[in-house]
């Protein structure tokens, strides 16, 4: 629904008024930003009487001229990406397995898998990471990868199941009618269609996965945030803001690129198939439940 249908086409007075409000709002927002920046830039005196330089003081940023700093930040980013990439591949595989189990013909397979899925989806990823780390003592990297893969695999599995269910029944029947084994029907007829239909949701979930790699910071994996934190410890507290902002910017760049890809893909699939998926780039708070019912992308 476009909003313009809600009110009349604005006449000259209304247009002037809305332009005025817009300008006033912009001025207020700019003033707020300026106030924030000047507050951050101001020097502060701590309770102990020491004077801290403002956040934009050059003494807080001089180390970034050193390529070694950037090298270690780059290594941190690579660690993040390495965890995300491996976890993403595993999550897709686990998701496929889960979708098979969830749609199995035998109740003895279907029901336990459903319980397992509910269990994995309702639990914090962080708790899962801690569990894998302590129980299987895998080291932090594999703890992060396993937890992310299982959790996101459960969500991708549900998305795939919804995708399979939304296909016309004739697809499966046609496959069986030409003499294919049910598993081959699933693999070469139903699955490719379901996957394509659910691609936006799956990519959105991968954005969540990339974001969630930062949880491995808590179990001690030296990903991007931990690297920034280590560098702060090395160079001194003076640089804590500088490193935080750089790390934040790097995360934003990575996530925004992936979100942008997700948006392009969802627009493409939306134009090719029926407009089932609304806005799959709405990626939610640290994962969540993609209860992908008939093509509604939940904000997770």
């Amino acid at each position, binding site marked *: 629904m476009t909003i313009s249908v809600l009110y009349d086409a604005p006449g000259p007075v209304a247009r002037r008024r809305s332009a005025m409000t817009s300008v006033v709002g912009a001025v207020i927002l700019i003033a707020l930003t300026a106030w924030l920046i000047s507050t951050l830039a101001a020097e502060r005196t701590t309770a102990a009487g020491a004077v801290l330089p403002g956040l934009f003081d050059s003494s807080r940023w001089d180390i970034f001229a050193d390529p070694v700093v950037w090298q270690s930040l780059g290594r941190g980013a690579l660690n993040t990406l390495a965890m995300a990439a491996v976890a993403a591949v595993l999550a897709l595989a686990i998701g496929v397995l889960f979708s098979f189990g969830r749609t199995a013909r035998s109740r003895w397979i279907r029901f336990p898998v459903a319980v397992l899925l*509910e269990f994995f989806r309702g639990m914090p990823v962080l708790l899962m990471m801690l569990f894998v780390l302590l129980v299987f003592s895998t080291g932090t990297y594999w703890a992060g990868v396993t937890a992310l893969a299982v959790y996101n695999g459960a969500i991708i599995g549900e998305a795939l199941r919804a995708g399979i269910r939304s296909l016309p029944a004739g697809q499966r029947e046609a496959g069986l009618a030409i003499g294919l084994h049910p598993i081959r029907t699933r693999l070469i007829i139903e699955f490719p269609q379901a996957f394509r239909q659910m691609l936006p949701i799956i990519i959105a979930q991968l954005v969540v996965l990339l974001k969630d790699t930062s949880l491995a910071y808590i179990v001690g994996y030296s990903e991007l945030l931990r690297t920034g934190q280590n560098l702060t410890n090395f160079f001194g507290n003076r640089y804590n803001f500088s490193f935080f902002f750089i790390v934040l910017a790097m995360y934003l760049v990575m*996530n925004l690129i992936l979100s942008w890809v997700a948006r392009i893909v969802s627009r493409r699939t939306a134009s090719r198939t029926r407009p089932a998926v609304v*806005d799959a780039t709405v990626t939610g708070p640290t994962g969540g439940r993609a209860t992908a019912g008939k093509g509604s992308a939940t904000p997770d």
Partner: protein
Amino acid sequence: MDAVIDNLPTFLSAFGGTLQLLALSGIGALVLGVIIAAMRISPVASLRAFATVYTEVLRNTPLTLALFFCATLLPYLQFNPGYFPLAVIGLTAYTSPFVAEAVRSGINGVPIGQAEAARSIGLPFGQVLLVIVLPQAVRMVIPPLINVLIALTKNTSVAGAFFVFELFAAGRTLANARGDAVIPILLGVAFFYLLVTVPLGLIAGRIEKKVAVLR
């Protein structure tokens, strides 16, 4: 198993901490999110731009970074109301864009014909919104909002890593103290999380089904 039963009081008080975090930041995120959503669909261009930037930036910030900022950098700026309020601030800020998106997509999900019909029988703007569009939008918005709350429940565990006493922090401490009973302790923690997330999920599913039938 005895490790869980012995520490049941700790578990329960930690669960209370989680519920407090969930309630406070949930309410905060709902209020803030609705305001952001209203800005996002308002006719004032500058508010719209602000809301868009706010949503995009916060939605693509990892939660760990948001809470890290609140727990370690805000005190450095001499803003230190204690770790619990800081965690609530972080969770609220992080969750609000998701609430905003859910609300906005709910309003956008009301078929255009509804608003057109309301306008064509002569209802003014306020009534179009209050009598026709919003009642339908609210119904569409509730399942995704519950999903946001489920995610928030799980996200409160991250606050446990930033000096707040709640389930995850309690589980980690207990697991460190009782190295022989790590599995039951962590499964106990998981049980309390599931106690919130699974019923919420069932409610969301039921409402979703009802709405689907109505349409």
